[in-house]
């Protein structure tokens, strides 16, 4: 194969140019003036990552300047929502810095909605409302001004290990989506700022609408695949996130609940959440009495109610939408971040002013920046992390020189867009410090290491190139399967054994063990 190998060396390699990655590329320049900073993105950083489409709210802002919340308040909130399973040091650290991030966005031109007192308009206790259609192009500009180079359309597939010192990072490799060329980045530090995992479970829509997942379909789980492959310790990877959203379009409900004060009811017009109070209390104890009710428990009531025959569940919008101002917010909320929901309602003649729209619970996802905690086990910050949660550098994984931010970092939920950008900034400063402390000296990456990975990466293409001549045409081959066929195989296993929608999110030790046996068998040969 005549594929070129392009070799590049740098100091800070940022994998992924979403919110966390742009934050990392930006901040790395401030602390590392003379360092070579490269950001690699598989799409185009102007519209990549989960915020590609825009956002109508920034879901994490303390408002310390107005005495609205302090970081410890956010720690309590996130801890309660995740029913205790959070790294408080990481959450606190993100929260104490997030306001400065948001203030920069404001300064850069992101349109923030303001209330009568001139404060950011609150959607809820933590959320502020924005006109964020161009959120991503704005932060991308910041990364472009800071990094030495932004590589668009390069998919990083593997990390490189240093060969002179055990358990130390040496760079990353990948391929160009356009040319197919092989890219090798030897780097002193790597910040994994890649996306969480959509599409690992069978989605509700299986035809053309398969791409209308809640999280972006291009969030392919690199956030976890990259660190896991080099032996990084992970945490809470079993924590799947299931979202309550408007049916089919997965339009967000946050603004509807918090700002428009709409509420849910079952098919008989009843408040079903109350009905499940006692049973949920038996399962989880006092958490059901906490305010706000942990999201997963509200979803639990939804799922139980539907199983008991109380569906469909509707959002009562008819009252709020009589107010033209609130009606506008209701629609713009979608147009700013989930246009697909507006399309679904337009096509089905659902005008929430006259019809209460239906809600659904999504297929599960694995990610670490929204209301979930999946991801890498990282060091906390020196000044506040308990001793066993600190090993030298903030946001460094259990592999030396390997940092994480955004979806990649586990245990620190409720970061959302602003917190992910902030975590990228934290990781970048720590990475610069790591280099300054001479921790990255003498890294060796042999040609053999990256040539071996090249073989692995291009093997499927070889299988295909040879195999396609064996058959007359079509998609059925005895020698290879296509990417979508592989994905569907994964989705079926996850759905049936790991608690997907078909099994009403249920799983147990035995089905998980069976999953492992089945997965080993089907993964062995394409």
């Amino acid at each position, binding site marked *: 194969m005549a594929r070129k190998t392009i070799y590049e060396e740098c100091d800070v390699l940022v994998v992924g140019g979403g919110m966390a990655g742009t934050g990392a590329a*930006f*901040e790395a320049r*401030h*602390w590392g003036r003379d360092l070579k900073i490269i950001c690699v993105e598989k799409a*185009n950083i102007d*519209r*990549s990552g989960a915020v*590609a*489409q825009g956002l109508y709210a920034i879901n994490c802002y303390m408002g*310390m*300047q107005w005495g609205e919340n302090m970081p*410890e308040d956010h720690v*309590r909130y996130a801890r309660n929502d995740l029913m205790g399973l959070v790294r*408080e*040091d990481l959450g*606190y*650290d993100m929260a104490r*810095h997030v*306001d*400065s991030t948001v*203030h920069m966005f404001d300064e*850069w031109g*992101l*349109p923030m909605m303001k209330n009568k007192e001139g404060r950011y308009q609150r959607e809820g206790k933590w959320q502020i409302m924005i*006109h964020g*259609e*161009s959120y991503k192009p*704005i932060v991308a*500009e910041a990364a472009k*001004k*800071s990094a030495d180079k932004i590589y668009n359309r390069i998919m990083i597939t593997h990390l490189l290990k240093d060969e002179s010192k055990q358990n130390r990072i040496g760079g990353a490799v990948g391929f160009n989506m356009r040319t197919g060329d092989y890219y090798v980045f030897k780097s002193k530090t790597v910040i994994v700022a890649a996306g969480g995992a959509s599409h690992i479970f069978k989605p509700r*829509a299986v*035809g*053309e*609408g398969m*791409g*209308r997942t809640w999280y*972006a379909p*291009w969030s392919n789980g690199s956030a976890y695949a990259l660190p896991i492959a080099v032996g990084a310790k992970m945490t809470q990877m079993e924590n799947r996130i299931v979202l309550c959203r408007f049916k089919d379009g997965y339009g967000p409900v946050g603004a509807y609940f918090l700002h428009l004060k709409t509420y849910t009811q079952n098919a008989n017009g009843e408040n079903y959440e109350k009905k499940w109070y006692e049973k949920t209390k038996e399962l989880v104890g006092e958490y059901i009495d906490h305010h706000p009710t942990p999201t997963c428990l509200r979803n639990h009531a939804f799922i139980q109610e539907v199983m008991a025959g109380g569906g469909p569940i509707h959002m009562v919008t008819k009252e709020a939408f009589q107010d033209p101002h609130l009606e506008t917010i209701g*629609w*713009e909320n979608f*147009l700013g971040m989930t*246009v*697909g929901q*507006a*399309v*679904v*309602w*337009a*096509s*089905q*003649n659902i005008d929430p002013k006259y019809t209460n729209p239906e809600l659904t619970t999504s297929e599960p996802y694995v990610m670490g920046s929204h209301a979930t905690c999946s991801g890498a086990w990282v060091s906390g*910050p020196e000044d*506040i992390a*308990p001793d066993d949660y600190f090993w030298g550098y903030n946001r460094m994984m259990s592999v030396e020189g390997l940092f994480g931010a955004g979806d990649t970092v586990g245990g620190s939920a409720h970061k959302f867009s602003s917190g992910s950008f902030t975590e990228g*900034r*934290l990781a970048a*400063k720590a990475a610069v*410090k790591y280099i*300054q402390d001479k921790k990255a000296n003498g890294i060796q990456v042999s040609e053999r290491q990256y040539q071996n990975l090249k073989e692995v990466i291009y093997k499927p293409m070889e299988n295909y190139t040879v195999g396609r001549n064996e058959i007359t045409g079509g998609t059925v081959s005895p020698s290879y399967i296509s990417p979508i066929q592989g994905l569907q195989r994964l989705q079926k296993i996850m759905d049936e054994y790991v608690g997907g929608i078909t099994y009403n999110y249920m799983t147990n030790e035995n089905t998980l063990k069976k999953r492992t046996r089945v997965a080993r068998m089907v993964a062995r040969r394409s």
Partner: protein
Amino acid sequence: MSTFVYMTRCDGCGHCVDICPSDIMHIDETIRRAKNIEPNFCWECYSCVKACPNHAIDVRGYADFAPMGHSVRVRREEEKGTISWKIKFRNGTVKDFISPITTKPWGKFIPKLADGDKPNQGEMNSQILYSEPQGLNTNEELPKVEKSVFKKGVYY
């Protein structure tokens, strides 16, 4: 929805190919125009629709659940700093919306950090990030709590 491209409006410029986050807008080699090669991986993010200088790209709701006869059209005007939407229901109802997309000229207020003041070693060794603590607007230092608090857990 997924995107589709009108034959008579597309001139094959490739802006959509350049921007699509899902990498599914490609130029057809025979007709030299763009097309969505994998509609089932389209997020309906409208990045391509907004980027098309000829308004050649539109969206038809996903076949699984969206009956035809609707449209959601957009015009993003960077110079004006606005985005305008027109939603047409299947039953003919029309709704228009317009929102700002920026409050400043593009990129002008984003700093080039390489040209700014160099941080000193004390700042490097501290917990502050760029623009902090001033950027927090609190007239105070970066908040901090004792480590022991986290070992116990921040209880109610």
